[in-house]
């Protein structure tokens, strides 16, 4: 179950940024600004994907959990699934 969630998230994001960085550049019309726009798209895709990847990999195998206070525990116990 947890694995499925992770796999879905991974594939969706990879696909999304992959399209932006790898597919959309082919469709930019020829003109004086084509080079700049393609560079921008590829760099955006790389930066954003990497940033998201670091965030999810850091949480994949947590070595310790959050410490919660009593009020928070009470609330989360009843209101969060």
């Amino acid at each position, binding site marked *: 179950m947890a694995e499925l969630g992770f796999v879905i*998230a991974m594939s969706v994001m990879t696909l999304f940024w992959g399209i932006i960085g790898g597919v959309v550049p082919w469709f930019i019309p020829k003109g004086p600004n084509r080079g700049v726009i393609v560079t921008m798209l590829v760099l955006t895709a790389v930066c954003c994907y990497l*940033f998201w990847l670091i965030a999810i990999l850091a949480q994949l*195998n947590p*070595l310790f959990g959050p410490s*919660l206070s009593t009020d928070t525990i009470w609330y989360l116990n009843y209101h969060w699934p």
Partner: protein
Amino acid sequence: MCSLLRGEEMCLAQLFLQSGSAYDCINELGELGLVEFRDLNPGVNAFQRKHVNEIKKCEEMERILGKDILIFNIQYGNNPICLFIEFKLLEVELGEVTRNKEKLQRNLLELTEYTHMLRTTRNFVQRTSEVSVFISGLIQRTKIEAFERMLWRVCKGYTILSYAEVEEYLEDPDTGEPTKSVVFLISYWGDQIGQKVKKICDCYHCHLYPYPSSNEERTDVVEGLRTRIQDLHTVLHRTDDYLKQVLMKASESVYTWVIQVKKMKAIYFILNLCSFDVTNKCLIAEVWCPVNDIPTLRRALEEGSRKSGATVPSFVNRIPTNDTPPTLIRTNKFTSGFQNIVDAYGVGNYREVNPAPFTIITFPFLFAVMFGDLGHGVIMALFALWMVLYENNRKLKNTRNEIWNTFFEGRYIILMMGLFSIYTGLIYNDCFSKSLNIFGSGWSVKAMDADIRGNRVLTLDPNVTGVFRGPYPLGIDPIWNLASNRLTFLNSYKMKMSVILGVIHMSFGVILSTYNYLHFRKKHSLYLVFLPELLFLLCLFGYLVFMIFYKWLVFTAKDSRLAPSILIHFINMFLMQGDGVQPLYPGQTGLQVFLVVIAVLSVPVLLLGKPVYLYWLHNGSHRLGMYRVRFDFADEFLHQAIHTIEYCLGCVSNTASYLRLWALSLAHAQLSEVLWTMVMRVGLRMDTSLGVFFLVPVFGLFAVLTVSILLVMEGLSAFLHALRLHWVEFQNKFYSGTGVKFCPFSFSLLPSSFEHDGLL
């Protein structure tokens, strides 16, 4: 794209201008802003140049226009001499009129004073004595006491002084300020006393007027004065009207004249840079011109020749040169902001790789890593969007406020920064210091099954089944916002993120240097400089990044007790001590030794490779008898040694420097949280209906502090640090930035002293 990545190809060209059409041709070039003129008379100082007289005349015209004195609306030709004569005539005429006006005003003042004196002295008690003589006049009120004392000391009672103040303020003709005067009457007897009195009156700058001996004389004089004063008033009035009319007429065309004079002065300045050819009939100018613009240049010269009606056309000739041309990088309104911040560090060498196209994305990204807040990002993006949508509004464009102009020039940069901040805010899960729970948290308290009434603090243990259900799909899990050990987790995450981003950014910089080596045909540098640099960086810090990812992927909560500290492993790698700690993976010691050996070996290759290779090349050709430029081995070796030391030490310090990404994002998050806890929560916690009214000023305070501290101060801080990361850590891997910028001769780029005075 070629232009933005590398800069345009430039060439040196010679222009042959006919003397008659030189002015018009240069006029055309100034309108287009194509070329940069070189100084062909560098040894000549400003006063010995050929057109120094014309420039002096232009400066005088500027001065006249600046004094707001202008011309009649006479038809003038484009001939600069004509324009100058009109200016001179106007100056003379207006000078005369002003002088006349001053004379009339002085006259008026005298008559007014005389009237006052006659009126006031009528009331003085007089001693009707045959022997006494009267002197009467006016003196400034500030001097009357000193005058009286002096008179007493000198004449010792042989004079009688009576005085009274004049109620009106009279205008002092020298200073133009209103001053108070005092009318005085001195009666004395004796000739010597008379002379002394006159000398004292002179000394104190008194205005003396003849004293009428009888009452009839007095009334006559008063009548006469009154008529004269009335006449003078009329004349002055008429003069004022005339002056106003003249100035009104001319003020309609003053702007065109100012621009004309500016252009003229610029053209003469350029003409001074040219030299004559041997036959003395033709002007030669040397210009730097982009290769792609040579046809436009030709057309401009033809246009200029046609306008001046010359029979022989001027032409352009491209000449080869060994000098380095200036760098021209064409930008549009979007890229110019980013190019400016790169140029602020240093303009690139001719045809060197330009970091600007990459800076368009990496700079806002690194800013956003340090700024990372969804709410603040939205506000910043909206502000920038407003500036962008209204960028053609004249009021926004042409203000004199320097700070606003700086923000306005960078509106696209701020827009990108805002958009990336929205994304990083989403990933950090930080919106005005609160987290969003879009997908449901991955941690479950219910599964912990603990005694909630008993425990003060509960630490969720990922080893218990069901507590941790998988990582949050978009960013940091929202439960961390509620945890008290939040910073422990976030610090570890952000520090590792900073190192990863830093190493990747620096490697990218090193890889960009290959562009330069390939373009400038230095293939040997590719193997002797680029390869050792890349190996050094990747073997040491690339391996560190690998270890971070490995630990994240391989070590779960089950082996949390055995989880290694990456820093200790890294240090042990250098000390070659692998025995104390558990290996991360089988074969780790061997691999690490191998990597360290490669890194250490690449240092001497970096240090000696290039100088030795060049020395060998130089010696080899010498044997073949070819002539080569003198190769200084010591110089080259020193240069390479400095580069090696800088690079190797820089790798370590620069990697650590990227930790500022962590530091600033931590500071921003903490400030945001403090603002929320201390300001907004206080307002939200009040239960009574009074709380509703109390919330309004609290929100106002919260908004003001958010904008001023978190947006402006933190924004500027993150901007500065992101800029530093680019300028130092990224650009010192490949960019030298010691070039000269191409400054074309263009009328639109001329500075104007009028703009400073507020006349334009």
